[in-house]
């Protein structure tokens, strides 16, 4: 079956709107993806027909809501090739998942233990570990990157020692689009007995990982990056790890028995799911996964690669344009600057032309410091973008260049 992008665009109501008098060109997909009608309908259906609190009620609505929510957990389990449904913890998003793990490790780390993070992490995968180091006396070490925006694996191997307890890397860099060699990182980390957390926030919309064959210890992702709603995400943890980690938050749902003397905690996954969760969000996360499967991850990857190649070659025709992140293995993200022009100015002009791109440091200041730039313009493409939209971006950037230089 050929990839019919025009037909796919029909599924996304927002793509019909215009911005500043121009048809919207949405190229900020790495920040958040747009939502297809069926995901929106799923949220509406929940609130209009079976809204109830889950896991507690004996009444019909509560049971329907519980079933739908648990069904969504199974969809996530299946999608990411996770062995047990209880290894899927619903979170409010990637950041929540990372903090949950970092907090859990507070009681497992000792002074002098080492934690490795990559030089291309989002702030959300740096700050929680710094906080963890402050609490425990562990030491944070950084896997450096090269000019192309690839991790320097030789240095990584040297940094790995028997002191290394944890390794955290993103599967894909949000600022550069680099796909990191997580298979190799996981294998090598396991050889020294370190646990590995993979931040899938930027990859989950493009790459469908098999978490069992990958052998990741933890994996986190957000629904809103993959056509689902904001405010919901998933944490995968190997059962033995999740059993070892203490609960993150206390409250309802996560207990087995409570007396004022002592509380015993519920089993997985409820131990980590205190309080009423984002029920509609969780169910719609499942609907988003269903939607993406209908399009097909292979088709998505092929089409997005095509867009990436086309956009890269067209943008590079602009004199003075430099792309940051030129790894051979990339998702459809292009971070760039025009010589002598501040990214903020380019972003302002292209927005006026109806094009949504991101400008700034993309919550990855260490990367900007590495390249000694204040930020970049980032265009990130999704399977519902078109070559015509790439052309509009190129024209808009040319216009901005003309006006600003």
């Amino acid at each position, binding site marked *: 079956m050929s990839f019919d992008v025009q037909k796919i665009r029909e599924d996304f109501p927002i793509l019909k709107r215009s911005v500043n008098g121009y048809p919207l060109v949405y190229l900020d997909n790495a920040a958040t993806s747009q939502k297809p009608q069926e995901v929106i309908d799923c949220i509406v259906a929940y609130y209009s027909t079976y809204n109830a609190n889950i896991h507690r009620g004996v009444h019909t609505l509560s049971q329907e809501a519980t079933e739908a929510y648990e069904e969504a957990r199974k969809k996530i389990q299946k999608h990411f090739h996770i062995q047990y449904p209880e290894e899927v913890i619903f979170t409010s998003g990637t950041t929540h998942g990372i903090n949950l793990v970092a907090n859990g490790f507070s009681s497992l780390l000792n002074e002098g233990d080492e934690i490795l993070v990559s030089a291309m992490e989002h702030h959300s995968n740096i700050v929680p570990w710094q906080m963890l180091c402050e609490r425990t006396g562990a030491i944070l070490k950084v896997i450096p990157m090269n000019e192309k925006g690839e991790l320097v694996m030789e240095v990584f191997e040297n940094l790995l020692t028997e002191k290394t307890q944890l390794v955290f890397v993103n599967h894909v860099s949000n600022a550069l689009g680099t796909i990191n060699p997580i298979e190799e990182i996981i294998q090598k980390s396991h050889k020294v007995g370190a646990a590995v957390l993979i931040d899938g926030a930027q990859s989950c919309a493009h790459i469908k990982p098999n978490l069992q064959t990958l052998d990741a210890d933890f994996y986190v992702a957000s629904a809103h990056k993959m056509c689902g709603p904001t405010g919901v995400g998933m944490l995968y943890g190997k059962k033995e790890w999740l059993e070892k980690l203490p609960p993150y938050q206390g409250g309802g749902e996560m207990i087995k028995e409570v007396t004022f003397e002592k509380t015993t905690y519920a089993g997985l996954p409820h131990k980590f799911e205190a309080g009423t969760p984002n029920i509609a969000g969780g169910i719609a996360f499942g609907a988003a996964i269903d939607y993406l499967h209908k399009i097909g991850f292979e088709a998505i990857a092929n089409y997005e690669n095509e867009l990436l190649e086309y956009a890269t070659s067209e943008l590079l025709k602009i004199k003075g344009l430099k792309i940051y992140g030129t790894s051979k293995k990339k998702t459809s993200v292009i971070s760039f600057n025009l010589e002598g022009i501040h990214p*903020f100015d380019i972003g302002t002009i292209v927005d006026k032309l109806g094009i949504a791109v991101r400008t700034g440091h993309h919550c990855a200041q260490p990367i900007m410091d590495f390249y000694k730039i204040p930020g970049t313009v980032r265009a990130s493409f999704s399977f519902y973008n078109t070559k015509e939209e790439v052309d509009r971006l190129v024209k808009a950037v040319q216009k901005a260049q003309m*006006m600003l230089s």
Partner: protein
Amino acid sequence: MTIATLQEELIEEFSLFDDWLDKYEHIIELGKSLPLIEDTLKTDDKLIKGCQSKVWLHAEMKEGNIIFTADSDAIITKGIIAVLIRVFSNQTPEEIIQADTSFIDEIGLKEHLSPTRANGLVSMIKQMKLYAVAFQAQKTT
């Protein structure tokens, strides 16, 4: 000239532009013509950190009026700074404290003053007013 007159002048100046392109071209020109803050004054204590573009602001008193100089690393931000400086510089602290900024809305640059824009301009206006309050306090003590 009073702040109110200067604001009216700017509203008239900007009303000449029919579309956003011309207006932005004008702002960019203003940005380019802005006398730069002296490099020795571009220190961290003069830096107003927006999330995206940086703004440096310096203030000094001359014959009862506050003189502002400023700079930014982004040219559009700089153009808007030029507009603000034209209105607020060389005025008394009292006038600066009392002045409102609704003219920004009228010249069609409101979006740049939304707090979510993160370009440092909102903080810049706040900082200008703070300088005015500080200089006024100095005068009265």
